[in-house]
């Protein structure tokens, strides 16, 4: 009898016993009791199919949680990701009709909310219980803060009456804990002000430079009932408690900018995440094409200028140094001049929604306070047409040089793979690239994410973003190892629902490339993906160690701290969580596994984890050239700014 264990087998009740038996010695087959199959509970679709029910002040009235949920619904909160806890609030938000997802750890759910937002630009929320659930989210709140994600962080927080008494369990001061990693926060202490502070939250989430907002709900606020809206402070609609107005540049400032662009021979726009979040990609494209300005994107999300456009500099690394004018638009995390590959001679214009940040880290010739979309609207309509043939040719030549370098590294990787019977990271990256952009799949279709150290460095340069919201740098700025899988499940939920720029690709599979170190943090969310039928392919580069293991060089008693057991089977673990597992050790096996996994994800909404067996020594350039070549910033593979 030969039955390979797979998720399909597990899910098919009649085959459950046989599938489980495949793990057992043959001699025990007849005596083995049947093992129950993994199933999606029948209550789940029923629960998801329930009609929304927003509370009213009639009858029993509304709780503070329901009032807050009504505000979230009115503000089009795009999704809530949570673990149970903060029960009153999450139940109210789900009841109000906000798409809600429950997962396996609060930290991962926080990353998922961040991922949903990164590929849509929408406000999302995460929630956890009191002290423990809330503190579990900390790493990913900080990651969202570094990425300037408009993330609403919610948590229950015991009862005001129990403050400082350590009554029962879970007491903790939350707001000081998020100091330095939020835009705004408040422990609500007066139920009558729940709407007022909800308005505070969305004013901060939807205006200015985005960032996490943290509200914690004592039970007195969440559970107090109101039958009369007059008892609430500042209870008025969003058009009265915040504005859609944005700072607009003056005509004179835009004329100055256009004059500098026209005088430049090799201008380049660095289109930051502000361009994405303000959905100004059409205006960007028109302006760039009219005046033949090069464009490179930056930020946690790529694609608001397509990598495959002739004016894209995302792969034109060498040409970056030729730019004589750099126009930053909506660059929220600002690098220093020794971090981006621009000449010290290049002049700089910075367009930014608020004045306070202009001039920080990077000296400017012209600073313009203004909304990204407003600036690009004027630029697109006013900038004169201009041909820059030499600059366009240089971009093309530089892009070809980068592609040749990456192919050379791939060829080296192929040799290393053949010599070791393990997969080199350059080979893994190229195989993913070929599946997504060189075969039958629409190169604009698949949203990708990448994390990890070795994984990120080798794979980032091979991933492409050919339309808005197509690629996520999971480690962006904060450098957190581990949220990748969860973040991309959140992004996948957005694709599944077809939100914003994901609408044309609604329901398509997504793909994340992460490491064995990283997967440990959020692997259990494969259960969440399976539960909600979110199709994701997780490519796990398994090199048996933390990527930073060379830090133990010269410290032999430390090395053990950097190593895992070798040849762990993440594919088997995935099967145990209700996903498919694939194990590969050669480029050919990887190619076939990728294709198979994508087809099953697309047709059956089933996720797969592909365990790519590798060696940690591949990052040692003295033994396995090219070693670790850091990504050029800005551009494909960049993750710092």
């Amino acid at each position, binding site marked *: 009898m030969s039955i390979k264990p797979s998720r399909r087998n597990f899910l098919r009740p009649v085959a459950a016993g046989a599938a489980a038996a495949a793990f057992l010695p043959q001699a025990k087959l007849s005596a083995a009791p049947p093992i129950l199959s993994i199933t999606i509970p029948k209550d789940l679709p029923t629960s998801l199919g329930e009609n929304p029910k927003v509370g009213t002040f009639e009858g029993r009235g509304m709780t503070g949680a329901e009032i807050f949920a009504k505000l979230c619904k009115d503000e089009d909160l795009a999704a809530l990701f949570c673990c149970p806890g903060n029960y009153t609030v999450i139940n109210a938000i789900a009841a109000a009709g906000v798409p809600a997802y429950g997962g396996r750890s609060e930290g991962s759910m926080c990353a998922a909310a961040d991922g949903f937002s990164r590929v849509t630009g929408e406000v999302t929320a995460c929630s956890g219980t009191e002290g423990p659930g809330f503190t579990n989210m900390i790493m990913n709140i900080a990651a969202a803060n570094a990425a300037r994600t408009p993330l609403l962080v919610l948590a229950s927080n015991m009862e005001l009456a129990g403050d400082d008494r350590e009554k029962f369990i879970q007491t903790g001061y939350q707001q000081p804990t998020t100091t330095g990693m939020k835009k705004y926060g408040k422990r609500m202490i007066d139920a009558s002000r729940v709407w007022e502070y909800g308005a505070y939250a969305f004013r901060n989430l939807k205006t200015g430079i985005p960032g996490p907002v943290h509200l914690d709900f004592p039970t007195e606020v969440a559970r107090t009932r109101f039958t009369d809206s007059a008892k609430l402070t500042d209870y008025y609609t969003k058009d009265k408690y915040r504005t859609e107005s944005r700072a607009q540049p003056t005509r004179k400032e835009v004329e100055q900018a256009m004059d500098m662009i026209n005088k430049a*021979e090799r201008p380049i726009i660095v289109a930051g995440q502000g361009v994405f979040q303000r959905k100004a990609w059409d205006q960007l494209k028109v302006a760039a094409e009219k005046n033949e300005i090069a464009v490179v994107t930056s930020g946690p999300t790529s694609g608001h200028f397509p990598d495959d456009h002739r004016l894209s500099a995302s792969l034109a690394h060498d040409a970056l*140094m*030729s730019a004589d004018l750099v126009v930053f638009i909506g660059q929220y995390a600002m690098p220093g001049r*020794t971090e981006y*590959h621009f000449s*010290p001679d290049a002049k700089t214009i910075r367009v930014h929604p608020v004045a306070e940040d202009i001039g920080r880290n990077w000296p400017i010739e012209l600073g313009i306070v203004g909304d990204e979309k407003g600036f690009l609207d004027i630029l697109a309509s006013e900038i004169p047409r201009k041909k820059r043939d030499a600059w366009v040719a240089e971009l093309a030549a530089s892009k070809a040089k980068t592609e040749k370098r990456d192919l050379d590294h791939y060829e080296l990787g192929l040799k290393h793979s053949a010599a070791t019977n393990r997969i080199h990271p350059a080979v893994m990256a190229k195989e993913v690239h070929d599946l997504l952009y060189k075969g039958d799949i629409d190169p604009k279709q698949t949203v990708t994410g990448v994390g990890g150290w070795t994984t990120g460095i080798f794979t980032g340069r091979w991933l492409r973003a050919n339309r808005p919201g197509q690629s996520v740098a999971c480690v962006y700025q904060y450098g957190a190892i581990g949220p990748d899988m969860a973040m991309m499940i959140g992004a996948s939920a957005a694709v599944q629902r077809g939100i914003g720029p994901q609408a044309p690709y609604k329901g398509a599979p997504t793909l994340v490339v992460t490491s064995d170190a990283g997967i440990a943090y959020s692997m259990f969310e494969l259960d969440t993906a399976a539960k909600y039928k979110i199709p994701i392919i997780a490519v796990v580069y398994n090199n048996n160690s933390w990527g930073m293991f*060379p830090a133990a060089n010269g410290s032999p008693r430390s090395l053990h701290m950097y190593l895992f057991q070798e040849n762990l089977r993440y594919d088997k673990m995935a099967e145990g969580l209700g996903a498919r597992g694939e194990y590969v050790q050669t480029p050919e096996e990887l190619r076939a596994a990728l294709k198979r996994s994508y087809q099953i994800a697309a047709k059956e909404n089933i996720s797969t984890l592909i365990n790519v067996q590798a060696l940690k020594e591949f990052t040692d350039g003295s033994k396995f*050239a090219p*070693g670790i070549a*850091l990504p050029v910033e800005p551009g494909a593979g960049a993750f710092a700014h």
Partner: protein
Amino acid sequence: MQWHKNRFYDLVFDAAKHSLRFPVVLPKVPRPMYEAFKEFVAGRQSEEVVAHRRIDPSKVRISCSLKNGNISLLFIAKDRDYEYATQKLINLMHEVFLVFLQDGLYYEYMIETFNLDRDQI
């Protein structure tokens, strides 16, 4: 000046010799790396480099040396156009750190030589 990798660099101008010199561009450099460095620097005067980035050999003579593991870089302004020479020298130094050292072969070199934390490179 404090510049790449938060280090201080001396730039010496000698009017009599019409020269500009960084006495220490990179420290603790092994011989094979120095050979690659020389090749990189020579490449900046090559016809293969786009004109606006090229260091014109008719205006500047470049030489570098390796002493006690330190690479030094010397620009002679042949036509005494110091503005041109300075601009090209600063740009070359910038590219040494952002292009030459970016090669995967020098990752460990940077960690050890500049005493960097691996998370801060």
